[in-house]
């Protein structure tokens, strides 16, 4: 878990540096600060389980096992990217590792997770589907329709609300009618818990419980993870127009990586050197990812018009 959390942090920090030095990686939404949510949830899932993600999806991708060099190449718009350069940050997908897609139309991923869970139920595969969404998405109808469907059909879905306090610049206490998003679970007759989203073990533990329930055919659960995004809504967003320095400093005091690192060191199974070695290895992975992205070929112009339609296996294609 520590390795995944720091790999996400390293990826996002490098990406931020790339953006600030003018590398055209498109529109990006940094996940920095929320690493414990993605990693805690995905650590409780099997590789064959599904996740559906949001516009702020790099962390979910890495936590579920999408290779960082294919992600970086996608951001560079290269043919070797996860989506062959046709998706970009807001559509990174890797179905081979159960990653159903970053999805920037807020709330839609939840409905797709419900569909994947329905598929698992009909095909009797015992897979579960986790749906990440922000507290901003908690106000859109699609989320509520998804929760109701999952509840009435007892589908194996784990709804994971990452409450980072802001929908772009709109604070949660303005936009949401209840004190906790998890309160809404009652409306769909499913368990709802609020956990410290800066504590990866707390997120993991809540997810393990929800996954057990889902696999047992008892239906969906809602987990609200209280977290914080360190940077703006997207690259270039000045958070000081709607947040105070004091608030940001206090949030960084609760940094999920520093906290988990201390827990690991206290536990005695890992030494400072072990963790430093992991950090160095992550830095190298990101170095290699950037080199791979830079060296990769651009998509051929013909790619513009391929895959508009799904090719007919009988040859009546495109």
């Amino acid at each position: 878990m520590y390795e995944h959390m720091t790999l996400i942090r390293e990826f996002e920090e490098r990406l931020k540096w790339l953006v600030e030095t003018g590398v055209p990686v498109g529109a990006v939404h940094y996940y920095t600060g929320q690493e414990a949510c993605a990693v805690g949830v995905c650590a409780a899932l099997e590789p064959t389980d599904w996740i559906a993600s949001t516009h702020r999806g790099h962390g979910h991708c890495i936590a579920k096992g999408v290779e960082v060099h294919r992600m970086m190449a996608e951001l560079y718009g290269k043919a070797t990217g996860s989506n062959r350069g046709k998706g970009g940050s807001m559509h990174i997908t890797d179905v081979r590792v159960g990653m159903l897609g970053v999805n920037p139309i807020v709330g839609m991923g939840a409905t797709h997770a419900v569909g994947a869970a329905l598929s698992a139920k009909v095909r009797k595969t015992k897979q579960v589907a986790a749906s990440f969404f922000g507290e901003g998405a908690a106000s859109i109808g699609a989320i509520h329709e998804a929760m109701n469907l999952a509840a009435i059909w007892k589908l194996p879905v784990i709804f994971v609300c990452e409450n980072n306090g802001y929908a772009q610049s709109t604070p949660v206490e303005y936009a949401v009618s209840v004190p906790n998003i998890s309160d809404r679970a009652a409306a769909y007759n499913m368990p709802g818990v609020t956990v410290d989203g800066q504590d990866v073990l707390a997120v993991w533990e809540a997810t393990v419980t929800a996954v057990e329930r889902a696999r047992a055919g008892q239906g969906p659960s809602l987990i609200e993870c209280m977290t914080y995004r360190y940077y703006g809504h997207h690259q270039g967003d000045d958070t000081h127009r709607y947040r105070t320095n004091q608030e940001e400093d206090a949030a960084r005091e609760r940094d999920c990586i520093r906290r988990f690192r201390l827990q690991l060191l206290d536990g005695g199974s890992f030494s400072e050197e072990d963790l430093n070695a992991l950090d160095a290895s992550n830095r190298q992975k990101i170095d290699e990812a950037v080199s791979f992205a830079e060296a990769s070929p651009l998509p051929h112009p013909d790619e513009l018009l391929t895959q508009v339609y799904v090719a007919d296996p009988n040859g009546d294609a495109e």
Partner: protein
Amino acid sequence: MITAAVRELSFGQAINEAIRQEMRRDPTIIVMGEDVAGGAGRAHLGLIDAWGGPLRATRGLITEFGPERILDTPIAEMGFLGAGVGAAMSGLRPIVEIMFVDLIGCCYDQIMNQAAKMHYMMGGQVDLPLVIRTAYGTRGGDNRTYGGGAGAQHSQTLYSVLAHIPGLKVVVPSTAYNAKGLTIAAIRDNGPVIVLEHKFLGLSAKGAVPEEPYTIPIGRAQIVRRGRDVTLCGIGRMTHICSEAANLLLAEGIDAEVVDVLTISPLDEDTILESVSRTRRLVVVDEDTPTASMARDIAARVADKGFDDLDAPIKTVTAPDSPVPFAAVLEAHYTPSAANVIAAVHSLFGSGA
């Protein structure tokens, strides 16, 4: 080669048979939608299969395939169509019914941003074998009452807002025969296909349907009547209006060819252009409103690629740019009729034709 018995089926029965035969063949096919069976969850009262959709096209399926594969949904188009998209990405082949095309406003993102774009923006990683069936259309001028007279929010045609989106295939069957073949083709397609089913085809669509499963290729128009003097290009029910007009025109010595478009996206330009190259005149007949419509799209493509073959301007016969009215007399005026088509043809031959 189709050898099995040929019976007369209604439009709805033909679609029902298509779905039933495909579901027998492929256990990953499921059906979802509001009241696709009806009376869900009350099986202990014997109330299953209470409805079956507006065309009764899904009636009886639940008794054969059970509630695991025939899923009545709550009223949540955004949610259950999204579930269809997610299920199609993960191993199922869902057939989702949106009761009326007027309701796509409730789930349009799932159509235009999700289903249509997944395969492309994910770099071809996922297929999306999803069928969306939806009923459309006015009652027209034949004084139907049951289910007709539904007014502005339950009578629209809305072809163009679907055909406009790259990545979607959009088919519009016009007879029981082509409804079965296009529905099976849609189910077997590995990408999203929308099937638009006119609510009031009635007797004009009833016809001989082979019992065996068969497909009609998506993306091909069909010349349903040969003629020398003018091409009448119809979509869905308007194909029957074109044929009716062609019969009346023949009596006055004008020999009209009728093209049934069948797939509005991707459009079969070749068949339409080939027809126009022989008849040298074109009237496009479309039940949708005209601004940014299929009628004008077809006209523009023929003007672009077939201008030298034309002896007269292209004419379009469409609904007006207005909401669908309620009163039967107004709705009859709203909906293109054979008389409207004949008037358009006359204008191509000079007033005395």
